[in-house]
């Protein structure tokens, strides 16, 4: 294959830059990031994090780490985090369906009421907001796994 002579790159670059400067149309300097973008990136982050946790759980399985109790608990933690990410992701999506007027009572207190008859998503919203029921056990199992791994090391060191 014939190589493009180096001097042609410079010439082409100059022509492109010159053309852009001489023939302006709409601005292409900075992309504008609208409001939903934050939610989208957050949802993608949940997906990414959940996927990596799933991958880790699989990886621990395939590399026989789970023969150790500590790693087995960490694998459970990973699976719970996958679940939590799915719950959180869904919860964020469902939240879009809940308008502020659907919640009555003093905002931020436990006395607030979700008006269930105004949206079919109310029940789903309620349960999906209880995501701590997944992430707290996940981190608990993670802690349990760490503790057991540390214990194994200490025992090995003591047994010489």
């Amino acid at each position, binding site marked *: 294959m014939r190589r493009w002579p180096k001097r042609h790159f410079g010439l082409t670059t100059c022509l492109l830059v010159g053309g852009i400067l001489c023939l302006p149309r709409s601005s292409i300097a900075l992309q504008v990031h609208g409001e939903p973008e934050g939610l989208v990136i957050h949802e993608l982050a949940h997906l990414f994090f959940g996927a990596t946790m799933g991958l880790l759980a699989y990886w621990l399985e395939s590399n026989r780490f789970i023969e150790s109790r500590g790693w087995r608990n960490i694998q459970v933690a990973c699976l719970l985090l996958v679940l939590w990410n799915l719950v959180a992701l869904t919860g964020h999506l469902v939240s879009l369906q809940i308008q502020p007027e659907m919640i009555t009572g003093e*905002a931020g207190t436990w*006395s*607030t009421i979700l008006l269930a008859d105004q949206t079919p998503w109310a029940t789903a919203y*309620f349960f999906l907001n209880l995501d701590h029921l997944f992430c707290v056990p996940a981190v608990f199992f993670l802690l349990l796994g760490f503790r057991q791994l540390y214990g194994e090391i200490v025992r090995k060191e003591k047994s010489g």
Partner: protein
Amino acid sequence: MMDGISMAPIWFTDVIGSSLMIALTVLCLWYAVHLGRAQPTNIMWTYLIALSAALAAFALSRGVGHLAKRLLLLAGRQEIWDALAPYSGAINTMTFIVAGSITLFFQRVQKINTGILNDKKALETASQEVMRLNENLQSLVEVRTRELAVSEEKYRTIFEGSTDIVFVLDKNGRFTDINLAGLTTLGYDAPEEVVFQKTLEDTFVFPEEFQGLMEDLRRDGFVRDREYRLRVGSGSEALVLLSMTAGKSDSGHITRYHGIAKDITARRRIERQLQRADKLASLGQISAGIAHEINNPLGVILGYTQLLMKEHSPESQAYLDLQTIEKQAGNCKRIVADLLKFARAAETARAPFDVNQSLREVIALLNRQLERDNITVNIRLAPDLPAVVGDSEKMKQVFMNLVMNAKQAIADGGTIWISTEAEPRTEQIKITVSDNGCGVPEAVVDKIFDPFFTTKPVGEGTGLGLAVSYGIIHEHDGSIEVKSEEGVGTTFTIHLPQRGLEGSLTATVAAGTAPRR
């Protein structure tokens, strides 16, 4: 479907869950850090530290966010929470991405790390194997070295302790090693004088014999029990029995020679002396028999001749004829007497006498003749020479024979050395008579004591002088040896036993007809 759902459970779950999340993730981080400290080189703990740190950051961000939200809403500061909420959410997002990225990245790193660890393990195994082999090799080398040292000492002892000449030559015949006996026999003091300095050929009296030897070695690879004459010491020679082998390399080329040479000079001399003694003993028996048989008729002839001479006038022809008969019969009688002396069948007086004195008397008697022939006599007589028991007159006859032999060998102008010395170790005295005359060819040395053997022209000697001397010396339980080299000179060495005076009273010994050995 209910009309309204209380959000209280969500509120409580949020508050308690956020607090628990913070506490639990911080504890996770604490354990992860301790795992990392316990095994700093374990990449798994590094990952867990990073993961738990990201989770802790997430928990703090989210938990603090949630709690702040509740508090701000309770305080009626919705606007503040609205301002803070995006930051809290963004940090949460970032922590997810970080935790996920770390996990993805870690799996790749772990794969590489596993490969490195496997390589390390293989390397350690190989290293241990090498060390084990090295240890085995070291112990094997030590054992072999010890065995080699023992073997070396054993063979070195044999090599150095051997009384035979043991040597090693390079392919050119140059000495590369020789034992102490070899150095001593060849007349060297230190190995440096021989090793890498001399060749075996240098020691050969006849170089053509060496060439023949090397040809045989190249052809057959060995030679066995060959007799060669080697140069030893200061110009003398030694007769050796030589065996040699050729050492070859893997390619079949001769790289060295090994040899053992036994000095058989003394053994051969003794053998020759024994042969000579046997021969002379036989001759003595014959001579004694003949002498006895001739002696009686000669006595009758002489007796009747003298009777007849009395009956004739001294001026008569018959008287002159009888006188001739008497003279020749007398000569015959002297020869017979000499034969009897050789055969040790003559009467011998035994009395202590001074050998030095006998020698002086003989030299005094011959001194004029010696001076006339321009012969110098060097005398070195031991002053405290013990007395010898025997017949001093016969012994003088021996000395006279030896000195006269020396005189005749020198012919005109030369030196005769006469010496005596005591040898306390063997309880003998040694008498040496040497000359620098013409010497005797090696081929006839063995015959020199034979009766009637002479190298002089016919009529100048009966050939009985040395035979008589031999008989007399042996009659005194002594020995007489000769060393002669043609053109250099001759040395007669007499050994006589020292005798005390006990049993040395004058005694007449009627010796038997056969020489005693």
